[in-house]
């Protein structure tokens, strides 16, 4: 079959398309046909399928996540709220901070090193995209039992990947979590958090406004990374040339990202962009549709101009590729030269691939033919929304009734001793320095507190001492017993950890790791956790500024413990007043607060 163009789609309405293989349901496919008034081309089908996936569209979680907006507490610190790449918080003195936590669970199981490494890479680009300089990372992790065979494969790889990428980017790692539980054995959780700092005026948004403005793709070349699924399409259209099998593993190049960061910051400082977006999951499809959907509404892209690492890539694959270390910027025509000059200083490849217009359509051209012609909002923002059924699991009552009072208690000194030794020796309580010593905590010279302290603290301004404290927490066992309370406990713990450093908690990010949303029991856990977190945030008067939902974390029928990881960020007017963990001076008075 030859190239599937919009023209050929119009004349061949009855071609059967592999939408099911791409994860689309029949009614979703029908909706695409309805939106377009014809069948989609294979490029369009590829775009809709990834953008309407759970991962990109939040179709199962959206109805619940709305509570974070509806119940948002009154606050005057929030400068950019949910919906952008990351939320932005005012910390005073003209400074703003952006932070967000994301998951890279599934890729990290397949290839622990690269999966975890590209997880760091992705969240750092999200933060950079807001116009901020990334200043620190954290890594909440969950693994199967420490002594399990597979943990021995996964854990060292994940830790080396996080260190390998983060250390090479020059971002201090200031904290995280390591938790072991059997439910994570076939499905580890690799969450990554990044904090960035900017001045108020520097905030950038993912928006393609201003017809006539140029669309510039810059950074690494596009290869066949992470497009395993979409090859179904490519092989249908391109069986003659027969693209070789595509790796679904993305390989990170932290050096390319480090250079990209410096290049972007120089571009921001010279005020050369109107809008910017990083290319993460769903690659160009995501960037072009989101940028145009949020902006003037239209964009024309010439796909042939995309610099390729692999010249056999089909247009569907180029649109879908998840090659790392790429960004897409919207630039006024008069500033394109200056933009390209900075890129060349940093040896970053940059190409004008298209132009913003007010047609209301995203059109993509390949070899002179139009292969995509869609209303971008329908791809990026108006995907399907599900009200998934949820139901309190039947075993929940029994689980809650099974209280600690039934457990044997140590009665003798010897038993007590044995219990304490068992606790001290348990992996969940043990010293984590085998992991944390593989992370650079000193780089950038602003780390005031890091592991093993309760929260990481970084200095933002050397003169005034202004700084921020961040902690992430979650106890999945609590959340399993009661997801509503469990999410609140996670919030409360992170909040306390930040407050204990002397910081005023300001804002929340979260990474909601759950099993399959198609399981009503899991969906109930999710709904309860979101409700709990939203209520808790209202009570503590800290807004949720953004986060991430990761579903389908299960092995066969067994879902992971519900794991709503909560990150809290606080501000310290002067980091010299921080309160370190532990007893510092001889003779200090010890007080116990609370009951």
């Amino acid at each position, binding site marked *: 079959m030859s190239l599937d163009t919009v023209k050929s789609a119009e004349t061949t309405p009855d071609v059967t398309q592999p939408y099911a293989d791409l994860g689309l349901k029949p009614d979703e496919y029908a909706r695409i046909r309805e939106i377009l008034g014809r069948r989609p081309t294979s490029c369009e089908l590829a775009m809709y399928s990834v953008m309407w996936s759970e991962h990109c569209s939040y179709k199962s979680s959206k109805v619940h996540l709305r509570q974070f907006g509806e119940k948002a507490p009154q606050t005057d610190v929030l400068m950019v709220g949910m919906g952008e790449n990351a939320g932005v918080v005012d910390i005073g003195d003209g400074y703003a901070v952006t932070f967000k936590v994301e998951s890279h669970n599934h890729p990290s199981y397949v290839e622990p090193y690269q999966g975890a490494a590209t997880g760091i890479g992705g969240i750092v680009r999200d933060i950079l995209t807001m116009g901020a300089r990334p200043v620190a990372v954290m890594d909440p992790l969950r693994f199967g039992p420490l002594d399990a065979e597979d943990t021995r494969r996964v854990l060292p790889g994940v830790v*080396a990947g996080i*260190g*390998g990428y983060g*250390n*090479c*980017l*020059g971002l201090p790692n200031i904290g995280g979590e390591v938790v072991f539980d059997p439910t994570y054995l076939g499905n580890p959780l690799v969450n990554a958090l990044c904090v960035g700092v900017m001045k108020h005026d520097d905030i950038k948004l993912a928006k393609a406004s201003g017809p006539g403005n140029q669309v510039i793709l810059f950074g690494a070349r596009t290869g066949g990374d992470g497009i395993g699924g979409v090859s179904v399409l490519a092989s249908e259209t391109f069986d003659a040339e027969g693209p070789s099998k595509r790796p679904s593993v993305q390989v990170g*190049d*932290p*050096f*390319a990202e*480090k*250079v990209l960061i*410096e290049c972007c910051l120089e571009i921001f400082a010279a005020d050369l962009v109107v809008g910017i977006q990083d290319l993460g999951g769903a690659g160009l499809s995501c960037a072009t549709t989101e940028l145009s959907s949020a902006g003037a509404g239209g964009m024309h892209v010439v796909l042939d101009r995309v610099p390729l690492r692999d010249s056999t890539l089909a247009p569907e694959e180029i649109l879908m590729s998840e090659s790392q270390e790429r960004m897409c910027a919207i630039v006024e025509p008069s500033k394109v030269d200056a933009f390209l000059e900075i890129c060349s200083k*940093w*040896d970053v490849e940059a190409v004008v691939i298209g132009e913003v217009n007010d047609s209301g359509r995203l059109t993509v051209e390949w070899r002179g033919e139009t292969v995509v012609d869609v209303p971008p909002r329908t791809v990026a923002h108006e995907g399907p929304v599900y009200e998934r059924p949820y139901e309190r699991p039947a075993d929940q009552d029994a689980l809650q009734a099974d209280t600690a009072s039934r457990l044997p208690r140590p009665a003798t000194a010897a038993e007590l001793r044995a219990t304490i030794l068992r606790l001290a020796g348990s992996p969940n309580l043990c010293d984590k320095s085998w992991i944390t*010593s*593989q*992370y*650079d*905590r*000193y*780089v*950038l*010279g*602003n*780390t*005031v507190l890091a592991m093993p302290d309760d929260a990481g603290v970084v*200095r933002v301004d050397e003169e005034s001492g202004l700084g921020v404290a961040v902690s992430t927490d979650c106890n999945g066992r609590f959340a399993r017993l009661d997801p509503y309370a469990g999410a609140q406990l996670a919030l409360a713990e992170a909040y306390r950890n930040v407050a204990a450093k002397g910081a005023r908690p300001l804002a929340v990010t979260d990474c909601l790791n759950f099993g399959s949303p198609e399981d009503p029991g899991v969906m109930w856990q999710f709904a309860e956790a979101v409700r709990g977190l939203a209520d808790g945030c209202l009570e503590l008067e800290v807004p949720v500024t953004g986060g991430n939902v990761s579903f389908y974390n299960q092995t066969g029928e067994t879902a992971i413990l519900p794991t709503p990881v909560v990150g809290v960020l606080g501000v310290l007017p002067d*980091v*010299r007043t921080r309160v370190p963990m532990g007893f510092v001076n001889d003779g200090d008075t010890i007080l116990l607060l609370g009951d």
Partner: protein
Amino acid sequence: MTARVGVVTFPGSLDDGDAARAVRAAGAEPVRLWHRDTDLQGVDGVVLPGGFSYGDYLRCGAIARFSPVMESIIAAANKGLPVLGICNGFQVLCESHLLPGALVRNDNQHFVCRDQWLRVENVDTPWTRDLRMGQEILVPVKNGEGGYIADPETLEWLETLDRIVFRYINGNPNGSRNDIAGIRNEAGNVVGLMPHPEHAISTLTGPSVDGLVLFTSLLNSLLTPAMSGSSA
């Protein structure tokens, strides 16, 4: 007039800002040098900072060694310009053959970041003259490829000719031969070490202020030169 100390930025340099901060904290003026520059702007000394120059692909420091700025630095170092290589900078100095030996993957195969005690073994360099022989200092070490190796003869003459400047004590973090943490060239103007003195200039952000002395030493040696041979 104060001393001007160049701090080189290669693509992938990470601790260049910290090195510049340390230079400033010592009372000197940092001058940023870009990897494509050949003009050293008349600086009085140069710091090659830590990081992953050019991604540290191939071997750490191998690609940086061929950058334009290094051609100028090699020439100047051979004429006596004080040069301090920290971590990746040390690797660059070895790759450039300004210092002997090489740095290889840590013996435990992991990146290691920790606070490390060092013993000062040589104070006849502009970078260490204000330290005391035998002084023990606490400085962060953070590297994946910090194991110092050289062939047995080289190790032998490093020892007998007093070229070892710092030695790890209370545990060797990376398997370095003879616990070597830092060495110098024959003239003493070129010093390389794996630990990071620029991260030990304030107790707010580091474990001690011991590292600052390397930078103040340079400043003092520039202001009151010709004290070579003396131990302060």
